[in-house]
């Protein structure tokens, strides 16, 4: 692994070119996983039959490998006439896979809110939607900022899986250089460093958010 500046620059250029798409996929998947996971968790609480169904769906999603889900959506959906670009399938797979984990995080975040909170809100005559979104959800977010942030970082770190369906994210682009030059060490090392910097930045943002949420209620 001799020091080869032009080669390193070539790799970095490829990584940075792929970075916007990678970050976009991660961001959209975070939002998707968040919304889907929250919907799962709220539906789980509606009534018993629906709760059991949601439980099954969440457990199924969590118990199957991400890679399997990615291949499944990519190769099975076209069977039913749904042909989507790899980027879309990738974002979908990441959203669905992590929604299962986030639903569990949301569950823990809601379970720690005393029952008195929703009782007080109901007793005031607030509609169920207002109880959920004005009273429960904000307190839940405060409880789960840290674990939720960890999963957001995991989503970013899972984008390399999308290379298998040809998405031009950072891993795929780096891999292209590596396989065409038969030099894997430098590309993977650089990619690792870039991921480290991105993940550390994200973790730092999550920590800041958590501190702010804590301060805003001083309890």
């Amino acid at each position, binding site marked *: 692994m001799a020091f080869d500046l032009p080669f390193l620059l070539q790799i970095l250029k490829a990584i940075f070119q792929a970075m916007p798409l990678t970050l976009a996929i991660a961001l959209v998947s975070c939002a998707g996983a968040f919304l889907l996971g929250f919907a799962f968790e709220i539906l789980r609480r509606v009534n018993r039959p629906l709760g059991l169904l949601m439980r099954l769906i969440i457990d199924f999603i969590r118990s199957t490998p991400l890679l399997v889900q990615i291949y499944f959506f990519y190769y099975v959906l076209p069977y039913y006439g749904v042909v989507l670009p790899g980027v879309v399938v990738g974002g979908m797979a990441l959203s669905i896979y992590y929604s299962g984990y986030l639903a569990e995080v949301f569950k823990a975040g809601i379970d720690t809110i005393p029952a008195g*909170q929703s009782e*007080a809100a109901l007793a*005031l*005559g*607030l509609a169920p939607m207002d109880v959920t979104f004005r*009273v429960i959800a904000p307190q839940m977010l405060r409880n789960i900022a840290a674990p939720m942030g960890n999963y957001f970082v995991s989503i970013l770190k899972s984008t390399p899986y999308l290379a298998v369906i040809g998405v031009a994210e950072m891993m795929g682009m780096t891999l292209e250089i590596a396989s065409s030059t038969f030099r894997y060490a430098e590309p993977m090392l650089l990619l690792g460093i870039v991921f480290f910097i991105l993940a550390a930045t994200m973790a730092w943002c999550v920590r800041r958010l958590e501190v702010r949420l804590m301060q805003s209620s001083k309890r």
Partner: protein
Amino acid sequence: MVSNDVVIAVKGLNKWYADFQALKEIDLDVMKGEQIVICGPSGSGKSTLIRCINRLESFQEGSIRVEGVADQNDLLTLRRTVGMVFQQFNLFPHLTVLRNCTLALTRARGLEKAAAEDVALSLLDRVRIREQALKYPGQLSGGQQQRVAIARALCMSPKAMLFDEPTSSLDPEMIKEVLDVMADLASDGMTMICVTHEMGFARRVADRVIFMDQGRIVEAAKPDIFFEAPRNARTRAFLHQIL
């Protein structure tokens, strides 16, 4: 002050938790402007009874009618007509005192923010805590939090107020400030049902004191009769223990 209009009418109420019968054949009419204190040993059904009134608890038999609510199955209207104060205050910790009070006004009553804040501030003033309006509940003492909880319930201009052991989780020195607010409310003619063990308050404020035991109303009488000459042996034993 007490009129002949029935505000809350409970008839033949029976409630079970699985096999355990929590309420047995409860009949109770609460008149407009009447203040009722319910006492009794823990597990006697006092809290369950008042939680049935605003349907925080469901029940299997009997009926509860709240005056002015056309459809008793319309839970939103029913709950907006009856205010409730809890033992644990249950203020929303992520909202300021003011927003705690305006939330239901803006979301349930559809008031504009400014109008809602006017209402909230005047009621915070009434419970003597207006200067804390912009603080968060966690920054207040227990007594202050409970007074905010009372103001929050009053914001919806309820026809009746339910108090579920409002002073039971307060330090002794804070009980008085909450009871004083409640006594003020009573003297303004608010219809109220209060589950409490504060017998001094019952004697001073209540029009009727009700003693419950094992899911039944065992005794209901004016405070002077209730405290001086209770008819039932269980009431006497209970009073003997706590007085």
